[in-house]
C-alpha cells in the first residue's frame, strides 16, 4: 500500500508571529520555518503504518519554493521513502494546492493520502476536504486514530460531541488531528540517509492548471492588545460597567 503525505513549510510554532507593517500578510522574512505540526503528525502516521507492515511506501510531497526542500528532507529523515517537490514561487491558495495534489494522486495512485487537518499559518482547514471532493475519494477528517482493515480504513474522528468512527473504502483521504500520535525526531543516521533518498522536482507550471488565486487576502491584522484594566470604587459601579459598557449582563 502506497501512502502519500503532503506537507507544508510554515513558520515554526515557537516563533512569535508578527504581521507585516503594511498589513498585507504575516511576516515570514528571516523567521525559523518548520514542517507544519499537523503535517508532521501525518508523516509520523504514515511511517508507523509502514513500520507495522501495512504500508509499503511513503511518499511525501511539498508545494512551494526551493526552500521547502528543507522540510522534505526532514520528512525523509523521519522515515518517508521518497519525495516530490512541486516547485512554484507563487503563494497558492487551498484550492490550487488541492488541484495540484489531485494531479499527483492520479499519477501516484496512493491507497491513502494523509494530510494535516490545517496549517498553523493560514488555518484554513480546507485542502484535505477539497482534495477529497476533486478526487472523489472518501474522507476521514480530524483523525485521532487510523486503522487499516483490508480494503477499508477506520478513522476515529474528533468531533464536537466526542469521537466518531467512520469506515472508508480505500483509496481514501485522512486529515490528522493533534492527538493522532506524537511525532518522533530524526535520529542522526537517518538524517544522513535522507540525503540519498530520491527527490523528484516538478514545476507547478507543468501541471496544466490555472493557478491564479480564487481568494485574495485583503488585510492581516494582529489580535488587539489587551488594554489596561480600571479599578472600580464599588460593586455598584462594577455592575453598572458590566451592563452598560461591556454589555455582558443585562
Amino acid at each position: 500500500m502506497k501512502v502519500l503525505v503532503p506537507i507544508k513549510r510554515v513558520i515554526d510554532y515557537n516563533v512569535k508571529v508578527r504581521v507585516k507593517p503594511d498589513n498585507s500578510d504575516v511576516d515570514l522574512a528571516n523567521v525559523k520555518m518548520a514542517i507544519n505540526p499537523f503535517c508532521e503528525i501525518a508523516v509520523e502516521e504514515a511511517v508507523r503504518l509502514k513500520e507495522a507492515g501495512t504500508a509499503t511506501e511513503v511518499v511525501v510531497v511539498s508545494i512551494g519554493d526551493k526552500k521547502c526542500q528543507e522540510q522534505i528532507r526532514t520528512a525523509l529523515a523521519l522515515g518517508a521513502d521518497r519525495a516530490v517537490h512541486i516547485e512554484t514561487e507563487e503563494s497558492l491558495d487551498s484550492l490550487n494546492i488541492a488541484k495540484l495534489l489531485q494531479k499527483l494522486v492520479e499519477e501516484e495512485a496512493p491507497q491513502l493520502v494523509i494530510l494535516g487537518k490545517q496549517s498553523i499559518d493560514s488555518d484554513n482547514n480546507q485542502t484535505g476536504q477539497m482534495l477529497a471532493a476533486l478526487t472523489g475519494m472518501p474522507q476521514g477528517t480530524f483523525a485521532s486514530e487510523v486503522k487499516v482493515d483490508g480494503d477499508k480504513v477506520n478513522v476515529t474522528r474528533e468531533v464536537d460531541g466526542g469521537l466518531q468512527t467512520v469506515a472508508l473504502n480505500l483509496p481514501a483521504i485522512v486529515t490528522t488531528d493533534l492527538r493522532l500520535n506524537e511525532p518522533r525526531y530524526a535520529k542522526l543516521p537517518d538524517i544522513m540517509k535522507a540525503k540519498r533518498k530520491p527527490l523528484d522536482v516538478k514545476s507547478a507550471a507543468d501541471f496544466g492548471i490555472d493557478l491564479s488565486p480564487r481568494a485574495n487576502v485583503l488585510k492581516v491584522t494582529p489580535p488587539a492588545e489587551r488594554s489596561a484594566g480600571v479599578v472600580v470604587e464599588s460593586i455598584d459601579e462594577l455592575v453598572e460597567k458590566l451592563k452598560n459598557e461591556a454589555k455582558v449582563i443585562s
Partner: protein
Amino acid sequence: MTAPMINARDIDFLLYELFDSESLCNRQRYQDHDRTTFNEVINTAKQIADKHFLPIRNKLDNQQPTFDGKKVHLIKELKPALDALQESGIPSATADYEFNGMQLPPIIANVAGAYLTIAGGTALGYSMLTTANANLLQAHGSKELIEKWVKPLREGRYAGTMAMTEPGAGSGLADLTTTAIKSEDDSYKITGNKIFISGGDHDLNENIVHLVLARIKGAPKGTKGISLFVVPKFLVSDDGSIGKQNDVALAGLFHKMGGRAQTSTALSFGEKGGAVGYLVGEENKGLQYMFHMMNEARVMVGSGAAAIAVGGFQYSLDYANNRPQGRLPSCKDPHSPMVNIIEHADIKRMLLAQKAYAEGALALVLLGSQLSDDEKTAETDEAKAHAHTLLDFLTPIIKTWPSEYGPKANDFAIQVLGGHGYINEHPVEMFYRDNRLNPIHEGTTCIQSLDLLARKVPMNNMLGYKAILAEFTKTIAAGNAEPSLAAYANQLAEALTTLNKTTDFLLKAMGTENIDLVLANSVQYLSMFGHIVISWIWLKQAVIASAALKEELHINEQQFYRGKLQAMQYFYRYELPQINHWSLLLTTLDDTTYQMNTDWF
C-alpha cells in the same frame, strides 16, 4: 511561551556568518553534509532537550543520588532520557562512519551539546565522560583493549569514568599513591582510593570502565612514574559476557553544590586483595595519555560553562521582558502602568553584561571546536599546523574565560530575577551552582594561568603568542576599515601594546627575579589575556554586523545586528579597560599577596 534555551538566530550568526561552517562541507570528511544536515542535527538535539531533559531538570537537581550502603539510587526518569540520547546517535556524532558516527564537524556537535547542557545540566556528563573515555582508549590502547572495551562504550552499553583524583592528590597529581602490581597473566592488581569520580557508580549501564591513574610498584616518583589502567566494575570474559564483580567498591557519594544529576563518588580499589586492571599503552606514560585528551576536555569545560551562561541569559531576558515592576525615575504618577523591568537601566546593564559574557564565551568555545577540527581536517598541512598552534595556545583561555565569566553571567541572571532568582522555581540559581564547578575541574584557574604564562607564552620561541597576535592584528585592520568601528579597533590596538609590554616584562623577570614572586599574579595575566581575546571575538562579530547593517534589512535582522554592536560596545567600555589595572599589578611585580605572611591571617 517559555524562555528559549538559546537564541537560534545567534547560532545561525555564529555558525554561518562568523565561522562559515557551511564551507566545511568542501572538506572530504564532511562531503556528505550540507547546511540542512547540520540544522537537522541541531534540531534533533533541541527536541531531545525539550522532550527528555527539560521536564526532569528540576527533579534531577532536587533529588540527588543516594547510596544505601549497597547501591546508588538515581531518579528513574534519568535512564530513559539518556537512552533516548544514545539512540539518537548524538554521543558518537563526530566519530568516523566505521565507528557508527556520522562524521559531524565538532563545531556543530558543540552547538547540539549546548542545547542538551542547558536542558539536561550535568546529566549529560554520563554520556560525555563515556565518549571521552572511549576516545582515550582508542587513541592509546592496544588492539585487544579497543576490541574489548571501546565497542561497548560506543554503543552505550558500558559507561566510562576518569579516576585521577585521590584524597591526597588533586591538583597535585604527582603525589598520587594508588599502586599497581603486575600479575602473572600480565594484568595488574590495583590498590588505592580515588575521590570525586564522576559517574563512578550507578546502574544506568551494564558495566563501568574506570580509567585509573596508578603507580606501578617501583616506578619513579612524581609525574614520570604514573601509568594508566582500565579497571572495570565487572570483569568481562573473552566472549564479551559480564563476569564477576571486580574488587572496586563504592565507599560513598559526595553531595555537591551543583551538578547533582551526576554522581560524584569515592571508590576503593583493592580492598579484597587488588582490583584487576589492564595497562593502557606503555608503563609510566599514563599522565601523558591523559593530557593528550586534556585539550579536548578543557574545550568541553569551557563549552559547558558558555552554554549555561547562555541559558541563564535567555531565561532572565525572557523574565525581564514579561515582569512588570516599578516605573522609571522620570515617572512620578503612581496611577501610570508599571513598566516591564527590562525598561530599567540597571536591568539592561545586567542583561548586556550577560549578553557580552555569554555570547562572547560561546563564540570563543565554538572557535575552540573549529580549531580542534582544523588541526585534523584543514586543507593544507600548513593550515593544520597553524590551527594546532592557535588551539594549543588558546586552550587555557578557552577553558578559563567561560568558566570564570559564565558564573558571573549566571550571578547577574539571579539578580535580574531578584527574589525569584533566589528560589528553585526558576533555574537561574541552579545554573549558577552547576556552572561554579567549571573554574575548578580539569585544571583550576590558577593552573591554567601558570600553563599560559610559564609554558604556552614562551614555548617554541613564542610561536603561539605571535600567531594569536597576528589574528588580533588582522581583525584590528578590518575594524579600522569601518569608520564606526575605528575607535574600538584602536582601543584593541592599544590593549595589544599593553599586552606586549606586560609580556616582555614578565618573560625577562622570569629569568632574573624570584620566580615565585613573578608567578604570584599569574591569574591577573590570564584575566588580561582572556579579556583581550574576548574583545577580539567581539570586534570580529561587530565587523560582520556593521557590514550587514549597510544593506536594507528586515527589522528583526536590524535589531539582531544592533544588539551585537551594543554588546561589543559594552565590552569595550565596561570590561576591556580593566586590563590596564591588571597590567599595572603585573609590571610592578606587586607583592601584596606574595608578602602576606601566613600567620597574619
